[in-house]
């Protein structure tokens, strides 16, 4: 691991001031410390923001939204009574990510800002456009079985591994940020970016910007759930996951619909085409299959991950069928 300075900020403003070029914010460290040990991340300074006073979950009265501090630990988010009742999709997504130990350490802000990655990115003996622009992407010719099928580029086919972010993208979360230029709000989806020709940039955040809170609007009426398919039953990244909310009226017509996919793209992928295909239609497996097909028409699978298109289609249909048969 490269040498670095360590500084613990007392408030957000001090953290931003300490985050000079070459510095990185440290939350729970579950991704950053690992990447530093691998030699992938080499910050000159760590600014510890894990003890900043962004550690509360504030819920509006019944029927309202919620505000989640960026330093809230993943386990506390998933265990919160209001999150469990009002945003079951989010609680389930968080519980399906990492292990009990990792969820105790990982912060909400850090979960969003974990690196979009693949095994080649984590291996400094291999070329990687995300680490060194122009070096090439060995995953495109090599092992990309678990990598992106949608929105990727010739430069990068990595996926964003967060489960929580998939639920937040479906729930229209708003990410509150402070930085050298002041405060701003970044909508989800919209925080993460597709790789294009600049795969080194995972998000739209500028250097020195710090997430302080996640704001959740009141959930639309309907049932919601998060389903994740992986290679083993627990503590593994998604091959494909689906966060879905479905609100169906008494005539069986879809009135509210939010769908996002994990494991398929460089970003948590909001399935806007599928939503558009479902709204106003009669709920049922045929409509769900048509919606899934509308979304997955965008898919450009690689030679060894075409299975994910079928998997995503079947998972969307199964998840929506679970919510409203």
């Amino acid at each position: 691991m490269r040498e670095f300075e360590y500084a613990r900020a007392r408030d957000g403003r001090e953290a931003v001031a300490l985050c000079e070029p070459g510095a990185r914010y440290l939350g729970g460290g579950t991704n950053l410390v690992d990447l530093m040990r691998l030699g992938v991340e080499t910050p000159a300074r760590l600014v510890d923001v894990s003890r900043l006073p962004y550690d509360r979950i504030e819920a509006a009265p019944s029927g309202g939204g919620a505000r989640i501090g960026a330093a809230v630990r993943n386990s506390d988010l998933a265990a919160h009574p209001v999150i469990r009742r009002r945003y079951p999709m989010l609680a389930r997504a968080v519980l399906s990510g990492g292990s009990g130990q990792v969820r105790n350490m990982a912060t909400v802000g850090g979960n969003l800002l974990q690196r979009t990655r693949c095994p080649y990115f984590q291996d400094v003996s291999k070329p990687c456009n995300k680490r060194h622009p122009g070096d090439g992407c060995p995953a495109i010719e090599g092992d990309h079985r678990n990598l992106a099928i949608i929105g990727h580029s010739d430069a990068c086919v990595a996926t964003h591994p967060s489960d929580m972010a998939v639920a937040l993208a479906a729930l229209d979360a708003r990410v509150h940020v402070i930085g050298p230029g002041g405060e701003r709000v970044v909508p989800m989806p919209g925080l993460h970016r597709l790789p294009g020709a600049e795969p080194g940039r995972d998000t739209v955040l500028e250097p020195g910007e710090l997430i302080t809170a996640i704001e959740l609007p009141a959930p639309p009426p309907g049932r919601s759930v998060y389903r994740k398919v992986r290679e083993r039953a627990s503590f593994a990244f998604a091959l494909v996951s689906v966060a879905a909310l479905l609100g169906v009226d008494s005539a069986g017509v879809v009135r509210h619909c939010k769908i996002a996919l994990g494991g398929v793209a460089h970003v948590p992928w909001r399935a806007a085409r599928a939503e558009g295909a479902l709204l106003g239609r009669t709920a049922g497996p045929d409509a769900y299959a048509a919606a899934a097909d509308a979304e997955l028409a965008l898919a450009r699978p690689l030679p060894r991950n075409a299975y994910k298109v079928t998997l995503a289609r079947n998972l969307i249909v199964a998840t929506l069928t679970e919510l409203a048969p």
Partner: protein
Amino acid sequence: MAEITLRVNGVERSLSLDTRVSLLDLLREHLGLTGSKKGCDHGQCGACTVLIDGRRANACLALAVACDGLEITTVEGLADGEELHPLQAAFVECDAFQCGYCTPGQLCSAAGMLREPGPSAVTGDLTEDPALTAEEIRERMSGNLCRCGAYVNIVAAVHRVAAERAREVAGR
């Protein structure tokens, strides 16, 4: 270098450390507490699990300098003098290990897990705090690998203690 003070198994310790030292290396190399094991050093195997302020965490992923002022409990701190922690006794009674390398992490993980409220990924009704069935224990302990494959007896040992605790709570 950084100056830090933390409490380890109830004893205050002040050290001067390189910022790169992990909590795991602090415990093993600087304090001689070799109960916590280094398996993968990437947060994937759980052999290094300790309790930080009472909550289980991977000591390999924690920077020691970031633990300044915190309370650490390792496997050496679980027993009460000569009296084994109930989980330790249950592991012996249930034959919940073969080589023993993962055991300190399994014990600390289980000790933390038994105090964690709320549902898990396999809980049906999210609004309930479910009973710790074998299925719940397997999910909640998935951050601890056992390459000997002693899982059946590990689950039995943890289940025994979880059931005792549930009976105690019900009896109050």
